[in-house]
């Protein structure tokens, strides 16, 4: 299914507009929904445009093996996983090196937000399933996992809001999609605890000058604020609907 590549190298920004019509600082339509599964203790479905990620949280629960517990805190166990149908070419279900790395960086982006000290000797399991991949899946995954944690009633210092900044055709853009990632110059995924002003994830794939780097950070912060508002709104909606019952 590589027909998509035929049109490579076509300009990604023309007349100040990106190929999907957005301005450089526009985020794709966000759709967040909480408590979408019955079995999990918490769950959320998150969409940034065509990027669609489901997250579920089980726990705090018995970690099973004794050797996986810590005496003073809960351990987080996190899996970032892509459905075979989520990508252009079917993805083999076995975990790729990329998924193994991203499970780690996603866990490390969530660790500072969870008040793990409340649940010593337990495990909190976070499962992220990428259902459809159109760029920014790890940051959408962080956003979804943080909603699922909140939905599971796990105490947190703040929500974690994920967003990716990119550089395409020399311009910094917010919330890059897959095409921009593939043909652009840089992809910088970030995650923030917005009300605390803390960065919990930052990676850069590609090339930036130092000046661009600082601008990208600011742009990311701006985007994260919007994601954060949408997160709070989704929780409010869920909370309200529970109230009504």
């Amino acid at each position, binding site marked *: *299914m590589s027909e998509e590549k035929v049109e490579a190298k076509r300009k990604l920004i023309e007349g100040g507009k990106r190929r999907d019509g957005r301005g450089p600082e526009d985020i794709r339509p966000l759709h967040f929904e909480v408590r979408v599964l019955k079995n999990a203790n918490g769950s959320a479905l998150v969409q940034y445009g065509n990027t669609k990620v489901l997250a579920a949280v089980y726990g705090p629960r018995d970690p099973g093996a004794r050797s996986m517990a810590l005496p003073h805190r809960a351990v987080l166990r996190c899996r970032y996983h892509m459905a075979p149908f989520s990508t252009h070419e079917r993805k083999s*279900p076995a975990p790729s090196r990329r998924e193994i790395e991203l499970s780690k960086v996603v866990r490390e982006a969530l660790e500072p937000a969870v008040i793990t000290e409340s649940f010593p000797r337990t495990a909190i399991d976070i499962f992220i*399933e990428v259902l459809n991949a159109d760029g920014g899946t790890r940051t959408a995954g962080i956003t979804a996992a943080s909603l699922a944690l909140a939905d599971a009633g796990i105490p947190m210092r703040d929500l974690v809001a994920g967003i990716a900044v990119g550089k395409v055709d020399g311009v910094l853009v917010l919330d890059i999609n897959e095409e921009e990632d593939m043909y652009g110059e840089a992809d910088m995924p970030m995650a923030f605890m917005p009300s605390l002003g803390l960065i919990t994830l930052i990676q850069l794939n590609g090339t930036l000058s130092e000046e661009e780097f600082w601008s990208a950070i600011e742009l990311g912060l701006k985007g994260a604020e919007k994601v954060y508002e949408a997160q709070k709104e989704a929780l409010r909606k869920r909370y309200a609907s529970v109230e009504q019952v």
Partner: protein
Amino acid sequence: MSITPVDIPVIPALKRTAILNLLSRSQRIDGRSPSDTRNIEISLGVIPNANGSAHVKLGLTQVIAGIKAEIGSPFQDTPNMGNLIVNAEFVPLASPTFEPGPPDERAIELARIIDRSLRDVRAIDLEKLVIIPGRKVWNIFIDIYVIDHDGNLVDASSIATLAALLSAKIPRASVNQDKGEVILDPANRDEIPVRKRVLTVTVAKIEDHLVVDPSLEEETVADALLTIAFSEDGLITGIQKSGMGTFKREHLKKAMELAKNAYKSYISQISQFLVRS
């Protein structure tokens, strides 16, 4: 090694008794009669990157089926046939009893039940999926993703598979005669050649009671399950007994009657997804 399950959530004895008391009056714990199937909701096209996809809710059970068509080589002994590959993942977000890792025996069994229900009756016309005989064919991957487990994963998967297959579109493939290369035309998209609509129906046996479309609570107390696949022309295209119990012949008779009726119930509930646009 297949091992007697040891991690089944314990159903309190009271709950078990309640289920059986109700069944003795032909009632079920969720208010259904033994022959009632649960409500079905289907959303098509939920996975833009797939050639076809369906998100099915059967009661509170949720399954996504995604279809991917990729160009590959035929097997040596079937040079004039495309390939059908069915895979199921029981990802751990769907149930506390699912573990991360390669598919376990339950996921493999489910994928193989769906595969067999379609394959021998030639529900998909694999001969129509040849691009260059002996060299290039379409591989049709059916990936079943269970995302919430509230019982009867097989039927939910079967419904999702059929809906996804019927709604799938694959780019028209032609061959550049000079270079012998395959050219895909994304503007003209073809349907997948589905010859027969096949659906499975699962019946649970709880002591001497039989119920269709069991919920998770019912599965947990059931002795055994019987899954029967039917094609639209009334043929039986597959059977699987699962679970640690037994069936008498009279159970089979009753199960067959229940299944035939439930098949009609499934079909009528999803009829709007069985016609192609």
